[in-house]
């Protein structure tokens, strides 16, 4: 607060902020509150999951058997890796290592793509046997009157998560372009930081989806 009238050394200071710390804190708090909304957004689906699981424990057990634990586990590791790389990208920005920002961003994007490719194979193998959401469900391998419900929830949850991954990739590509233009440095890296927060949340949600969907015994 000391420099009410400080001449803006940081060119990224928008006119309505007093200084760049206020601006940085604001952006970060804003992002955190946005993450709060994301938690409750997915939260709705988790509620549906828990309610139906409490009603049909057997069905969830039988259905989860259809999912490949290996693929789920690999994807978990992939996402954890990508969380690490984006955290490293932020670090690189803080330390002013321009080339490293790009490098880590690329690594993150690649890992995100790997995640999607694996998800794609999982989906298509399910589609092939008629495991589709809701009315389209034709699979006969699960003997339960409410058979479609597990996979309806599965597709909603992983689908919504997948959309978040895609949005994340978009954001990181944007960051990459900007980084190449030299927009980020130790003095200004807010976009990298808040995108990283978003990406970690995507990882966080998967950390819960994985045991809940794949590992029911």
């Amino acid at each position: 607060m000391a420099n009410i009238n400080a001449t803006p050394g940081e060119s990224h200071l928008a006119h309505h902020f007093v200084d760049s710390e206020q601006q940085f804190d604001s952006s970060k708090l804003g992002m955190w509150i946005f993450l709060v909304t994301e938690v409750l957004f997915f939260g709705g689906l988790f509620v549906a999951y828990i309610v139906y699981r409490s009603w049909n424990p057997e069905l969830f057990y039988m259905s989860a058997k259809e999912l490949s634990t290996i693929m789920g586990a690999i994807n978990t590791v992939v996402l954890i890796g990508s969380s690490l790389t984006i955290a490293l990208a932020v670090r690189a920005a803080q330390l002013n290592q321009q080339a490293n920002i790009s490098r880590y961003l690329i690594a993150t994007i690649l890992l995100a793509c790997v995640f999607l490719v694996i998800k794609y194979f999982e989906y298509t193998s399910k589609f092939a046997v008629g495991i589709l959401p809701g009315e389209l469900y034709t699979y006969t391998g699960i003997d339960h009157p409410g058979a479609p419900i597990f996979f309806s929830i599965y597709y909603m949850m992983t689908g919504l998560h997948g959309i978040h991954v895609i949005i994340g990739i978009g954001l990181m590509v944007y960051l990459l372009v900007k980084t190449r233009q030299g927009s980020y440095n130790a003095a200004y890296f807010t976009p990298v930081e808040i995108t990283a927060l978003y990406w970690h949340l995507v990882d966080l949600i998967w950390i819960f989806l994985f045991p809940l969907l794949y590992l029911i015994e």
Partner: protein
Amino acid sequence: MSAATKDFKIREFPVEENPKEHYLNAASGLKSWLFTVDHKRIGLMYLASIIFFFFVGGLLALALRLELWEPARTFMDADTYNRVFTLHGAVMVFLFIIPSIPAALGNFFLPMMLGAKDVAFPKLNLLSFWIYSFGALFTLYSIAHGGVDTGWTFYTPYSTSTGTAVISMTLGVFIMGFSSILTGINFIVTVHKMRAPGQTWGKLPLFIWSLYATAIIQVLATPVLAITLLLLIMERTLGVGIFDPALGGDPVLYQHFFWFYSHPAVYIMIVPAFGIISEIISTFSKKTIFGYWLIALSSLAIAFTGFLVWGHHMFVSGQSELSTIIFSFLTFFVGIPTGIKILNWVATMYKGSIDMKTPMLYAMMFLFLFSIGGFTGIMLGALSVNVHLHDTYYVVAHFHYVMMGGTVFAFLAGIHYWWPKMTGKMYNELWAKIASVVLFIGFNVTFLPQFVMGSQGMPRRYYSYIEQFQTLHQTSTVGSWVLGLGFIIVGIYLTISLFSKANKASSNPWGARALEWMSSSPPPHHNFNHTPVVLHNPYDFHKPISEFRLGIDGSDNHHEHTEVAQTQPAEKS
């Protein structure tokens, strides 16, 4: 931002009366409005849209009332009626009342009351307005494509089986949800990070406290509405069946999801109204607000408790007895903090210097009407009585008393209170008072009979009814015309005040103490020409007004940083 004011030299900044340059003429042309990041202009754009949709909703309401003139068909068929009440409800709730006070008046005054130049994320603010408009377009599209006939609650399985334009409507509401979320995020961050030097939490105007509590509800509840509507859309397009018993789903779960949002949403509607009332009662009583902290914190208490009671809309839905009882028990607890507010307001008037100007008159009407609405809410929360009254006109009367008698009357109070500040013009006091009385009478004639017919068992969402109820329905219909007349008067004198020349408003016509009055009317582009500093609670009427006009000596808000901001592609957040 805890600022130690002693680091600066502060001095009084006299306010310029009737300034030549202000935010309204800072730039001109349609583009300067549509792409502005000035919170004041965005607030006004919201205000215009909201008033527009209020009139749309109001016209639909007049149509509803007209159809109920005769027990059977008066002039439209059942299907049309069902679409009309759905649109009335949806337009009033999602397009009018939820954005009303926060997005219009809040946007305009929140930064000013904090002595900030703008909200924390001005671009996000503009985006939020555009998202709102985009969502509204979807709604209009669905009206054009046959409308929706589900009721504003979109209950499954009816909403998944009816042939009407449910998807475009729910998509519209879904999109508008994001606008609401973005406004909420913006407000929370602004309140946390952008308060003027010296403005501690204990010196925040109560309108800010109420907007802060509202923003918390918006941020926590709206995402759940989003996921609910998404599931509904998926249910209709892919038949995912999460709410469809035929596919193993459960329709009552939909109701939990819906009310998890929509009950807290009623506090999104009313809490900002409470904020306005706090400002007005203190100002027009010229007296320190009684129980500042209780009023401030009760907003948060209402926000929190409001999340625990959604099941009172579902007492006869077939939910478990256990939850029915718990929901009923918790429901009443909202009444306590609300009552504390009301009684503290009344106590503020004690030994005041009361000036019954139009805003104060509306505030008094608010106290009366909202109390009736609140007490009938308590009635509805009582289990055995609810069984009888649920889904009757009693509920319709209850929520019009709180939404129309509460929020809309407070909104009217706020518009009149801040009209001089926003436009620099004074409205005609006499006509304003006449209109408020007409509205008050019209309102009661419309909705009091609904309590009676509801108690007698008249169900809601009924296109035709048994003859026994006809007199009451007709009284109600007549009342709705009186309401319409009242709004026409309001529309006329406010419009006239904009265009006439002789009625320039002073910077602080009511003698208020909050920061927004320490700027010129209308305010300059950057709200203040200096960086304001706050020493006192905004209701300290015993302190000299000069101590509310302090600013940092030598600070100049005019063009500080602006050149930089314009040349740099400012980041998004």
